[in-house]
């Protein structure tokens, strides 16, 4: 069964990634791996709703930022440990996703309308976080340094590596489960043809809401990680469009609706951006320009994403065609 192979492949891939802290001694190289995993988590979270559910969000920053601000504000204002904040952040992000989902799916918004509504919500949150005091407003919020694993702060990158590795693995396992569960089948049916799905007994609204909740939760976890990794947040970072764009670019470039697409997309976009930076220097906005170019090329020549290259080699990476059988 290809599906079992897919799980095996997933575990092997993560085991290989897990050797990074042992093999890589340079702090900056490990940093790159951490960022790739972080972007893969962002992308995979978007992939649940966008790739598997066909609901293209342009505002995943709303979930990401909520997770990030939750963990920061809870620590600073209420002294709540970030490990607990991790879950609260994820759940609050899920709450935001459910709210936005309810507001748009209830009224049957799809396609570009849904994209615009999500974008608007993220912007509203950005402006709100700029104007209220507990987020630190435009000045931002600084999480005080206390390098202790108990505070989800690590003395070196290895700790952060394992944190993001574990979060990423949890998200990827969830998406693997999507590929072999009734909920996943219904979600993909909704993506491919809402009316046909409805006629076959699929509760389209409930299915989209569940997907939004899952997607928002993992996006929120990525936000928590970001806050703990950089220890600084401001409204533009948390709720700005950069996160939203990164969230959707990664799976689109890697392969929407596939398990490994976001990982491939994250690795390729990130390495490309790093390489460019190496050769061209730190030109502002160059990474986005490169992403844009890559996106155009992928959409033109590989509409099913970079993963479709692997599909030809043996289908081991399991595009959605090979998801069962």
């Amino acid at each position: 069964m290809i599906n079992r192979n897919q799980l095996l492949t997933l575990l092997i891939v993560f085991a290989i990634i897990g050797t990074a802290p042992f093999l890589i001694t340079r702090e900056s190289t490990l940093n790159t791996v951490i960022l790739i995993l972080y972007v893969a988590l962002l992308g995979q979270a978007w992939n649940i709703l966008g790739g598997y559910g066909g609901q293209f969000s342009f505002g995943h920053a709303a979930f990401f930022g909520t997770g990030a601000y939750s963990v920061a504000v809870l620590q600073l204002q209420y002294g709540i440990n970030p490990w607990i904040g991790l879950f609260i952040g994820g759940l609050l992000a899920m709450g935001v996703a459910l709210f936005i989902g309810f507001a748009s799916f209830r009224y049957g918004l799809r396609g570009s309308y849904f994209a615009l509504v999500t974008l608007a919500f993220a912007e509203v949150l950005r402006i709100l976080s700029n104007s209220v005091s507990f987020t630190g407003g435009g000045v931002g919020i600084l999480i005080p340094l206390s390098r202790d694993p108990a505070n989800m702060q690590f003395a070196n990158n290895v700790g952060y590596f394992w944190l993001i590795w574990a979060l990423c693995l949890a998200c990827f396992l969830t998406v693997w489960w999507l590929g072999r569960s009734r909920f996943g089948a219904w979600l993909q049916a909704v993506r491919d043809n809402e009316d046909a799905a409805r006629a076959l007994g699929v509760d389209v609204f409930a299915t989209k809401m569940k997907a939004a909740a899952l997607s928002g939760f993992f996006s929120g976890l990525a936000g928590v990680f970001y806050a703990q990794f950089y220890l600084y947040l401001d409204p533009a970072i948390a709720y700005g469009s950069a996160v939203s764009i990164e969230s959707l670019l990664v799976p689109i470039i890697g392969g929407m609706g596939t398990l490994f697409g976001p990982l491939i997309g994250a690795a390729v976009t990130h390495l490309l951006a790093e390489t460019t930076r190496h050769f061209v220097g730190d030109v502002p906005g160059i990474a986005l320009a490169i992403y844009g170019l890559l996106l155009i090329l992928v959409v033109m020549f590989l509409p099913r994403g970079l993963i479709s290259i692997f599909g030809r080699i043996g289908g081991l990476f399991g595009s959605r065609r090979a998801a069962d059988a």
Partner: protein
Amino acid sequence: MLEVDGITKSFGGLKAVDGVSLSVKQGSLVSLIGPNGAGKTTFFALITGFHRPDGGTVQFDGKNIMGAKPSDIAQAGMVRTFQIVQPFAGQTVRENIAVGAHLRHASRRDALDRAAEVAEKVGLGDRLDMDAASLTVAGRKRLEVARALATDPKLVLFDEVLAGLNPSEIRDVIPVIRAVRDSGVTILLIEHVMQAVMQLSEYTWVLNQGRLIAEGPPRAVAADKAVIEAYLGPGMAARLSAQAKREPAHA
């Protein structure tokens, strides 16, 4: 099994379905016919919850299902197909049918097994792993039938499953529909292809401009003056019967 009473739906000033009442008995194979734009598909959409009726009642299996969601109606055992086939493109035939099977089977494996079984029944057994988008029109019609059957329905509403097929394909699909009925599923067909209605159904209703204009066994209905005029235009019934009298040999 299905009791529709005085169901009505307007779109703006147009009464698409106007006070239609009919009742389908368990185990029967019946049909609803009518010229283009008569309101047949709207009628299906009304009783399966896709559109909300303006008035009237719908009872299925003794329960009032007016205003229920399509998913709840499917859960209760009434499933429709679409005139314009709606495959989940990019998914295989097996995956397509499994979506229907999941209504009664929570496990992926059970749903996929059930999908293979149903595919065999409708003659798609050899195309299980093909992309649904690459099926021929006839294949897609079979897929529509298969997906609906995979939900283990009590009543299936087939919306023009034979339209767009050539005569030999129609000959192939008719036994499939018969077999469905013989397996205990009640069937209500919407059909354009008169030959099929004649062959298949036991009882038929004729819809024209949103109203029922005739009902009865198909042969009787086909000879009905109002029905002929609805299809062929006013005055045609008289001309046809005059022609039949002149040329009795061809009649």
